């Protein structure tokens, strides 16, 4: 589905900009090469600030790569214009890390899910909203509430409902279960698994929770400071990690045990 090669991304460094002239750039992604196959669930892990969210935004062409190519279903989308991207937008959805800030505080939940559907001219909107809420395990009565009237976990599920209501082919999920308790996590992961199985959805799943990655993903990409340090099947990541950084990540997972070693 995606073919990425030699991908670089630099963003302007506003902070160190000289008084006159162009801002210097910060190199955020450095020469990434990988594929994502249709129907696959790929996990993206890595340290805070390593570039996971930026990579996600670049795949969806919310950023334009500085070098390298990104192609989607055989078509080079590296430098497409916004107008050319428009028909592709519905098919690629992103669910964000920060649920509160991505939900319009002045719209009730029902409208938050319905608005993008209307924007893309889909029909049977009310029924789609019902289905999406039901999918993520939120009671229908919640559609009349506003984002600030929900708990953190409930808000996160609204973000997921909004994305799946569009019936996309590809979803990029950025830390979507880290704010959830185990029951809601299990529920959301089951839901994502079903969507992958039934609808042939392709999923890139950014998370720092390796228990979740192990449960959900078939392949895992480990990012460190904008570079891929390991890209391997999930069993290998857990049973025989090659990169030192991957081992460091595994060792830092807090187990529910007050006597865990090295803590």
């Amino acid at each position, binding site marked *: 589905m995606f073919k990425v090669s030699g991908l670089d991304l630099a963003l302007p460094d506003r902070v160190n900009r000289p008084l006159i002239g162009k801002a210097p750039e910060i190199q955020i992604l450095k020469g990434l090469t990988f594929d994502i196959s249709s129907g696959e669930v790929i996990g993206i892990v890595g340290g805070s600030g390593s570039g996971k969210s930026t990579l996600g935004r670049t795949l969806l062409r919310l950023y334009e790569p500085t070098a390298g190519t990104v192609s989607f279903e055989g078509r080079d989308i590296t430098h497409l214009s916004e107008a050319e991207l428009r028909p592709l937008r519905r098919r690629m959805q992103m669910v964000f890390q*920060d649920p509160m800030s991505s939900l319009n505080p002045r719209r009730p939940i029902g409208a938050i899910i319905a608005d993008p559907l209307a924007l893309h001219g889909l029909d049977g909107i009310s029924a789609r909203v019902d289905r999406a809420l039901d999918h993520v395990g939120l009671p229908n009565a919640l559609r009349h509430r506003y984002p600030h009237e929900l708990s953190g976990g409930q808000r996160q599920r609204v973000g997921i409902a909004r994305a799946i209501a569009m019936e996309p082919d590809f979803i990029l999920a950025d830390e979507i279960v880290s704010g959830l*308790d*185990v029951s809601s996590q299990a529920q959301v992961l089951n839901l994502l698994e079903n969507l992958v199985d039934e609808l042939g959805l392709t999923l890139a799943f950014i998370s720092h929770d390796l228990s979740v990655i192990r449960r959900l993903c078939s392949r895992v990409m480990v990012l460190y400071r904008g570079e891929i340090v390991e890209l391997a099947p999930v069993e290998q990541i857990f049973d025989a990690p090659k990169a030192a950084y991957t081992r460091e990540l595994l060792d830092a997972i807090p187990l529910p045990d007050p006597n865990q070693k090295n803590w």
Partner: protein
Amino acid sequence: MTAFLEIENLSASLKRQRVRMLRSVSLSVAAGEVHGLVGESGAGKSMIGKAVLGILPAALAIDEGEIRLDGEDLLAMRPADRRRAIGAKAALIPQDPLTALNPSHCIGPQITGRLVDILGWDKRKADMRARELLAEVNIDDPDRVMASYPFELSGGMRQRVLIASAFAANPKLIVADEPTTALDVTVQKQILKLIREMQARHGTAMLFVTHDLGVVSKICQRLSVLYAGKVLEQATIAEFFADPKHAYSRALLAATPKYTDPGSSLVPVDSSVTDLVAAEIEAVDEGWRLAR
């Protein structure tokens, strides 16, 4: 040890609706102690923190109970006095890092503002302190972060900024609402260590809200297990993990995944247990509907 924060029989509900959000919650936190609040989404963990800090949503009313901070009965105070007492002694690490930061201001003034307003520091001194704090939470480049807008930082960086600013004015109580959910595990480990050190050094009392029992086992001395606004079990960490008393606590522990154990998969908390707990609560609190 005398308790720095004492909550006694605190009940809160949605105004004009018979929906209870908190049910006779009692707990106390001593200076230098970290008390965990655990439970599933919607259990009322954040509500307890908000009640303590006097920032409950307008739709909620406190029905009864007492909250004492450093011996002072907060609910008996005039609102202005209460705000002053809380502002001087307590701080929040909020659950949602992006919304807690003002998107149209740089990070720097958002940290130093507290120091200037609350402690009356001059700007230079506040600036230096802010840089120090950012370095303490392992931000590589404090100068760049101070001059950045929130959208220019990664999720984990924003969360660390909020941790730093909570400690800035040396509060005696910190309510930390899921303070590490946006962090990767290596940074989380450093930050938990750091919170423990800063909190021990300053004798800060902490209410630590989280759904992650792994995290609780590392940072807290005691915990309360909440369900539908009710405390089902209170115990020390050692007691809880060795011998959880309540059936719900056992179900919650059983549902917690362990990556080391390949057979363990993520499963929801056993619904036969939660149905039973819900029925018990409704029977005791007759006429009040569950929030969930």
